[in-house]
């Protein structure tokens, strides 16, 4: 380094040479480093495969097209033991995505409620929220999963002694059974109207905003949107003669048939992931709200703005800027923590693919690599989405 610097000072003319341009040099070194890392990684990978081959361990990805030969408890796509190992990957992946997605949505809602509640002026509400956060945050997640699964859900009665609600909903130690919708002819029309309603609401919202800017007149956008999105499809539904029926669960043989079964493994994992992550989100929300200067509230008060409106339109939007980055990492945590599923037998990607499939084929390196790629992809996708949302929420300098 110092050598080059003195070169520059003693022979200023040479500095025009490409190599002395710090940007070019930087780029060259970075390319070299990346090239080296790729070579390094590739060598290790090849080496491993070669060593395994020489020890008689089968390698490669051919196994993905072989029949799996085992069944899976829960699958969002049709699956049967004659399907391939490749399909077990899809089944596991979808189950992971499902529990992560639902978990993120519920944890966000619960977390925001708890975060705001902790700041409530009502002593009881604030205390309840504090106890919630401090308890759940400080108990290891795996214990909470076990608690829900072994202590809450498994002691439920057997299918023959199910708890029921109006012979429609059933709860027992095999899960929760709810009616499954059966769509009749013409139901598509209802769905289409629903989407038309959404588009119309967006357009209407834009129009109402413009009119408000121009004339100062307000428009009941909220109620009009509800009318468009829910009312309109309901009208179409009624006109078409209600093309929807319900398939009710009923006890046949050992278990319930019909309806939708939500397995206890899913419920336990979802409850644990949601309540645990919500405790962290609550803290993030609370700190975000506290980060908004008190002057903002005072200013709103002196303008005579209602408390609820102040929170919704003034405090929360500003707090969001502080909240989003740490919120993103909680989402990532939730997605990754969902791999604890294997402890209670929820068929996520770790349990199905890195568990059973790996054990039946013995192709550990390939399967572990694929599973890692899945978590990496889920995490990167979440990060990109949240960064994009963060940008759109960021302070716009005018």
């Amino acid at each position, binding site marked *: 380094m110092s050598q080059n610097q003195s070169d520059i000072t003693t022979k200023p003319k040479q500095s025009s040479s490409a190599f002395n341009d710090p940007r070019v040099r930087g780029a060259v070194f970075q390319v070299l480093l990346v090239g*080296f890392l790729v070579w390094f990684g590739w060598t290790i990978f090849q080496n491993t495969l070669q060593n395994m081959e020489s020890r008689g361990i*089968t390698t490669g990805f051919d196994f993905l097209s072989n029949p799996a030969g085992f*069944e899976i*408890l829960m699958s969002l796509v049709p699956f049967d*033991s004659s399907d391939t190992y490749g399909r077990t990957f899809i089944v596991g992946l979808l189950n992971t995505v499902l529990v992560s997605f639902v978990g993120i949505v519920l944890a966000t809602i619960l977390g925001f409620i708890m975060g705001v509640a902790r700041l409530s002026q009502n002593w009881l509400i604030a205390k309840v929220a504090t106890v919630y956060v401090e308890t759940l945050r400080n108990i290891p997640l795996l214990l909470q999963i076990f608690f829900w699964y072994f202590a809450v859900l498994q002691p439920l009665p057997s299918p023959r002694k199910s708890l029921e609600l109006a012979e429609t909903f059933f709860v027992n130690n095999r899960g929760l059974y709810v009616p499954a919708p059966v769509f009749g002819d013409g139901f598509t029309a209802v769905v289409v109207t629903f989407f038309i309603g959404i588009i119309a609401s967006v357009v209407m919202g834009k129009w109402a905003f413009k009119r408000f800017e121009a004339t100062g007149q307000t428009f009941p956008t909220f109620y009009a949107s509800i009318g468009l999105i829910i009312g309109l499809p309901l009208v179409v539904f009624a006109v078409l003669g209600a093309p929807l029926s319900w398939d009710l669960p009923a006890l046949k*043989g050992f*278990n319930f048939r019909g309806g939708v079964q939500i397995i206890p493994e899913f419920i336990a994992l979802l409850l644990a992931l949601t309540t645990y992550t919500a405790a962290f989100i609550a803290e993030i929300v609370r700190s975000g709200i506290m980060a908004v200067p008190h002057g903002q509230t005072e200013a709103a008060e002196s303008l005579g703005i209602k408390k609820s409106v102040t929170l919704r339109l003034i405090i929360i939007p500003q707090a969001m800027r502080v909240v989003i980055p740490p919120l993103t990492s909680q989402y990532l945590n939730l997605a990754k923590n969902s791999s604890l599923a294997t402890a209670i*037998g929820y068929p996520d990607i770790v349990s199905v693919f890195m*568990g059973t499939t790996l054990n*039946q084929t013995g192709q550990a390196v390939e399967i572990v690599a694929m599973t890692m790629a899945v978590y990496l992809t889920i995490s990167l996708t979440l990060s990109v989405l949240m960064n994009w949302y963060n940008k759109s929420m960021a302070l716009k300098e005018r």
Partner: protein
Amino acid sequence: MKKTMSVLTGALVATAVTAGAASAADTLETVKARGELICGVSTGLPGFSLPDEKGNWTGLDVDTCRGVAAAVLGDATKVKFIPLTAKERFTALQSGEIDMLSRNTTWTHTRDTSLGLNFAGVNFYDGQGFLVQKELGVKSATELDGASVCIQSGTTTELNLADYFKANNMSFSPVVYDTSDQTVQGFAAGRCDILTSDTSQLAALRSKLDNPDAAEILPEVISKEPLGPVVRQADDVWFNIVKWTLFAQLNAEELGVTSANADDMLKSENASIQRLLGTNGDLGEKLGLGSNWAYNAIKQVGNYGEMFERNVGPKTPLQIPRGANALWNKGGFMYAPPVR
């Protein structure tokens, strides 16, 4: 400067990785140098491998390991047992964490040919069966349509189950757990109607229930499960040792040599017994072991019949009759090649 250094270190590491690849598989030397055999067993399965409160392991699979330790090291107690779940067992052996696997493991085509492992024989002929809650009133496995089934992940059980239900046009929901304790707990709590595993283990698992009388074993046996010790492929010396130690214990039973009479048998006139106990010939040397290798295994651990009676036989809580596991000349499948 720092960058150059780290790049250099990286390159060095890379060459090290490339160069150190071909480490020879010499398990015998490793075990001798260590003075201890490291053996992979189950996390706890009565009759096969189970630790007591003091950490002493007992069982048929445990005795299989002890026999090898006696043959190789001259001391059946020089074994370290590593408890493994069904999912962990093969990786533990492939990676060299254990010297041999003796964990009620079924010998199958795929396992033998694609894992880089070799099965060194069969120490128990088993088959898969079902344990059901009595209150369901099921009398045969063909009445199980629609049942929920508790199984352990990473077992042949998982595959046989799917085949069996498919062949009989029945549906089921598999509830898959990692350990046998969880599987039993799931069954006990009523998460499943049936628990399935190797029949030898069903009796043991049933005994773990709070109320064993509430469950019964169905008559059907739906698969072949030859269980036996496993070693790494491409280490033929070690493979032979594990294989022939088990054969020696089987031959000992056939020849009437037991732990109690082994010393007297040293004076035997029978040529087979002489070769087995090393008073004549060099069978031990051919394995790379001392001439008293089989004597040690038999004297310290016993012949196969003794191992069976002690751990799983009619006088144990498992009460398994010899049946398929009797010697070939007593109506069973147990057959060891001759000692010569």
